[in-house]
């Protein structure tokens, strides 16, 4: 899996299983965490098998971002627009969570395709809620309406206590990510990956992709941003989003890709390290085999195991066990 998928697989599985077994409704109380510290809680009881309570907790926002009562701006409208009558927002949310939805499975559309579509949308609650402010700006870009924050630097949360930046304009929106990693190897691998983004954009087939640049220091567009938010050890990546990237169906995908950009790079850095470990282990094994080949007993031992003959004990074996004491 190269790209990160928007619907949470686990949540989608819970929902579809629940729907298939409505008559056998069991008690459900499940709690799990996904990348970037997004926590979920699902609760359902046997008394009302059609009702499901879904709670989501979002990563804590850094001080430079705006939030309304624990939720990003535009989240409530986005939820109402995406889920309609199927989901009802409970106020206040469950203790420890930013949002609790009461899902009514009986209000799902009757035909299978639409039903699955709505369930998938519910499983993408993370994209709907966290991506809401970004979606607002990009929708304004698509309709080329003038945004209220035009030419100002807007900070949006994407990771615990970390934000990325938007500079909305009429014709385009510039998105800048300060990239931070904890481990020094991660930093180097990420920097080499990020430079590939710039190179890849120049290839012929990707002319219509958003122009992308990388710089080790904050780009000039971020002049208005608070300095604490501008620290980074793997540079700054900027994407310029044009209306053609957000028209129609592309809007949701663009919102998801940009919201999870840092997680995407981080995921592939880790995969790369895992792959390197596997390679190194394999190389070690082949080298040890080569060394074993240097021992004259090796061939005899190999032949012995093949012929299933008995190994003759000699003084040499006695001496080798003595050596381990010296």
């Amino acid at each position, binding site marked *: 899996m190269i790209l990160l998928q928007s619907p949470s697989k686990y949540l989608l599985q819970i929902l579809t299983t629940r729907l298939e077994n409505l008559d056998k409704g069991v008690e459900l109380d499940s709690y799990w965490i996904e990348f970037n510290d997004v926590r979920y809680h699902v609760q359902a009881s046997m008394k009302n098998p059609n009702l499901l309570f879904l709670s989501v907790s979002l990563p804590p926002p850094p001080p430079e971002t705006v939030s309304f009562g624990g939720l990003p701006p535009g989240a409530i409208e986005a939820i109402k627009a995406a889920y309609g009558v199927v989901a009802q927002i409970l106020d206040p949310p469950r203790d420890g969570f930013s949002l609790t939805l009461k899902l009514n499975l009986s209000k799902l559309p009757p035909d299978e395709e639409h039903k699955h579509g709505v369930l998938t949308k519910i499983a993408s609650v993370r994209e709907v809620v966290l991506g809401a402010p970004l979606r607002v700006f990009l929708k304004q870009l698509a309709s080329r309406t003038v945004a209220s924050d035009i030419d100002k630097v807007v900070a949006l949360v994407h990771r615990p206590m970390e934000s990325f930046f938007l500079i909305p304009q009429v014709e385009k929106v510039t998105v800048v990510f300060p990239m931070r990693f904890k481990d020094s190897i991660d930093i180097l691998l990420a920097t080499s990956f990020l430079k*590939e983004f710039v190179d890849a*954009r120049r290839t012929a087939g990707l002319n219509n*992709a958003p122009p992308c640049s990388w710089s080790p220091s904050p780009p000039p567009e971020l002049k208005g941003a608070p300095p604490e938010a501008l620290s980074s050890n793997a540079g700054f990546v900027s994407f310029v989003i044009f209306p053609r990237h957000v028209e129609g169906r592309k809007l949701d995908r663009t919102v998801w890709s940009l919201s999870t950009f840092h997680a*995407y790079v981080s995921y592939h850095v880790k995969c790369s390290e895992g792959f390197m470990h596997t390679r190194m282990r394999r190389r070690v094994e082949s*080298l040890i085999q080569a060394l074993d080949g*240097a021992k004259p007993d090796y061939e005899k031992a190999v032949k012995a195991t093949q012929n299933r003959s008995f190994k003759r004990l000699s003084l040499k074996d006695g001496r080798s066990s003595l050596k381990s004491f010296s």
Partner: protein
Amino acid sequence: MAANMLRLYLTCIRNTLEAAMCLQNFPCQEVERHNKPEVELKTSPELLLNSVVICRNEAEKCLIETSINSLRISLKVKQADELENILTKKFLRFLSMRAEAFQVLRRKPVQGYDISFLITNYHCEEMQKQRLIDFIVQFMEDIDKEISELKLSVNTRGRLVATEFLKQFI
């Protein structure tokens, strides 16, 4: 041309090792009933041979120190950029931690080098000299190959990751 230079470098090391790997058992002169690799102690100059440094260029070299019962080979591997630097360090540390499995590998490299071997007379008794030398030379080639393959895999993956991401916007 580069392959030729590598061949010359490795051949020189191989010839030096063939001359240096004439080890015999030698109980410690200073402490009774002890038997130590003299190349590590370096206390008795009469037991040590002149050490040899074989340089491929400023960045790559090989130090061969010999004594009567032991031989130490230290390698400095080329590291062209930051990424190669960290890949080399990671890989050689990975190998050094498994020194016990390798028997002839030293747990810590000699100061100023990236990885070191310690071969004692006992190793020469257990293993054939020619094969042991083949192993050392093979090891050096494998390190070079592995580092460049790791670097290539990082660049390839980076390109793929970037392309897949950008394709979503088209």
